[in-house]
């Protein structure tokens, strides 16, 4: 697997007045396969942007498909894709990653989508349909015109989809009614604007549904795009060192003759963990739990702000 691929825009479709789909292909390389719920990262002039893949992973031949809603901000990635990208253009893309996988041990999958948050579910539903698994979709959208795949959705998933086109209060009431009825073996998946996701997650918590059955799509930055230098005092070594913008804390420690165990250098294995005694830390790992992040950091990817102090074993 490469760090990125150059892919060609094969097809652009206008799905709604504000949503376009883009199909990317590679003519010379085999693109890595992906699982339902995955996203790709596009390298755009304004930075890295993540978009969920919408094609059925089982039908993929050598293409990635995304759907993008134009947000209106002049500098946004979506405006750029809508206005400056044409069929035949070449874009750089990082291979798919999946923060939002289906839990295949589930007996029934319930999707809650709002607006453009439908995208990961479009892929999941076609995958589950191929497997013959049971699912349903609850889709809050401002109107029929704003709904991408409206006709296809009704043809393919007439018995699975419930639309929420009504006013806010009735919508909330109807969502709550459905949420109260969930049975054992169900996995819940949520994707949409922050307030919508928070509403559903909070209500699930009130109902006492364990967290492990509730899955949210939350895109998070994988890498700091512009690391800056900072100072570190190693309390138990009585040393203070500087970490330059082009090196990691792990490397700086090593240069200073302080060796700590390390392995993956990607923030996923937890080997290079140190104790944080003081200061603000920018966490970039996917290993530590929120609780652990209060007094621990992984030196391979996370950085300090200004001046921090740590203790090593």
């Amino acid at each position, binding site marked *: *697997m490469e760090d990125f691929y150059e892919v060609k825009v094969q097809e652009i479709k206008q799905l709604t007045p504000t949503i376009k789909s883009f199909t990317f292909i590679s003519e010379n390389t085999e693109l*890595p*396969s*992906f*699982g339902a719920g*995955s996203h790709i990262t596009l390298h755009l002039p304004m930075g890295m942007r993540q978009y969920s893949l919408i094609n059925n*992973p*089982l039908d993929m031949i050598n293409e990635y498909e995304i759907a993008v809603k134009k947000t209106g901000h002049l500098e946004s990635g979506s405006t750029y894709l809508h206005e400056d990208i044409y069929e035949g253009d070449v874009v750089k893309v990082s*291979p*798919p*990653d*999946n923060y939002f*996988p*289906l*839990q*295949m*041990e*589930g007996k029934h999958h319930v999707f809650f989508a709002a607006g453009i948050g439908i995208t990961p579910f479009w892929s999941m539903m076609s995958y589950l349909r191929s*497997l013959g698994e049971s699912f349903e979709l609850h889709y809050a959208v401002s109107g029929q015109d704003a709904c991408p795949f409206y006709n296809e959705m009704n043809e393919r998933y007439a018995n699975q989809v419930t639309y929420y086109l009504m006013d806010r209060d009735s919508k909330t009431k109807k969502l709550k009614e459905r949420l109260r009825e969930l049975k054992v073996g169900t*996995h819940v998946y949520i994707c949409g604007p922050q307030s919508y996701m928070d509403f559903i997650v909070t209500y699930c918590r009130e109902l006492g549904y364990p967290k*492990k*059955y509730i899955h949210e799509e939350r895109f998070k930055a994988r890498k700091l795009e512009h690391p800056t230098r900072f100072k570190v005092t190693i309390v138990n070594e009585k040393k203070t060192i500087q970490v330059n913008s082009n090196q990691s804390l792990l490397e700086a420690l090593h240069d200073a003759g302080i060796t700590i*165990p390390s*392995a*993956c250098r*990607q923030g*996923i*294995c*937890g*080997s290079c963990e140190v104790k944080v005694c003081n200061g603000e830390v920018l966490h970039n790992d*996917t*290993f530590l739990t929120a609780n652990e992040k209060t007094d621990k950091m992984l030196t391979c990817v996370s950085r300090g702000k200004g001046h921090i102090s740590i203790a090593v074993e």
Partner: protein
Amino acid sequence: MSVKAEQFPFPFTEDRYAYSNNSSLQKPARSVTMTDRYLEEIQLKRELLQANHQRCFRSLPLSLESQWEAMRRIFNELAENEPEHFSFEKRGNEYRFQNLLLGEEERFKYRDLSSIERQPLDIAGRHVQEDLIIMGDRHDGLFLEAGQLCFPSNWSLTFVLGMDFKSIHTPVPGITHKDFIGKVERFISRIRQNEAWERKNWSMTISNKLDTPLETYANWGKLRLQVTDENVGELVHLRVEVQRLLRLPLTNDILFTIHTYLLSLNDLIRNDLWLKRLYTTIQFLSDDIAEYKGIALYKNELMQFLEKTLSEKGISL
């Protein structure tokens, strides 16, 4: 079945033994490797599968999708990396894999059970030297859900089928210290799709026998009592498992492959650095680890042999 020294993945990078997550990212991501023992080991595997199928292949129904994915992935890798020996063609949903070394072919329709006579993992494993395990990544942890296991080092596939990751590892001494095994599980659950990580695991074994399952311990365990000062170099083998963990993208499960290599001490000591590192590692091994790795019974003979060889070669530590 010893391998040539050039192909032997010597495991010690330092002189001491310590638990660590010593995994490294594989680029490109590979789950299987061929060595010059291919034909012998495949033959042995097939014999074991024939004689003890229940012992060597087990699966839970939930693993089927991942088995299909693993089979396709493995055949693809073989054809890509060893095109002179294997080919893999796709026409629509129909696949044809050819193994030119064995003069065999496997045809199947993807995800169509009626097109195959065995379960997918049981087919794929017959073409590679690795043991193959599927670990399901579930909401409540990792579970062993399928395996084709012919060359285990003193464990039983039947026993661990359906078991969670932590329970599988309880016999390893000291593993719960600082929740080490919990961290390894968390690491595995963070492996990104299509990525493969590799680590090496080692132990000692008597004779060049690859198949040392728990089920036949009565036959091979007692060989440990036969080690003497005279035969130690010939009998004792360093056994290294190259273990790879690959995230299968479609199912989000983990394909865990184990390639086992054996090298007799007589072959190993030809390399001065290896000799030195093995000596220091064994010297500092704690008693419970020595016991777990099966060395305790002949540790004296082993140490004397290594010391004698070091002094004959004039190597100082």
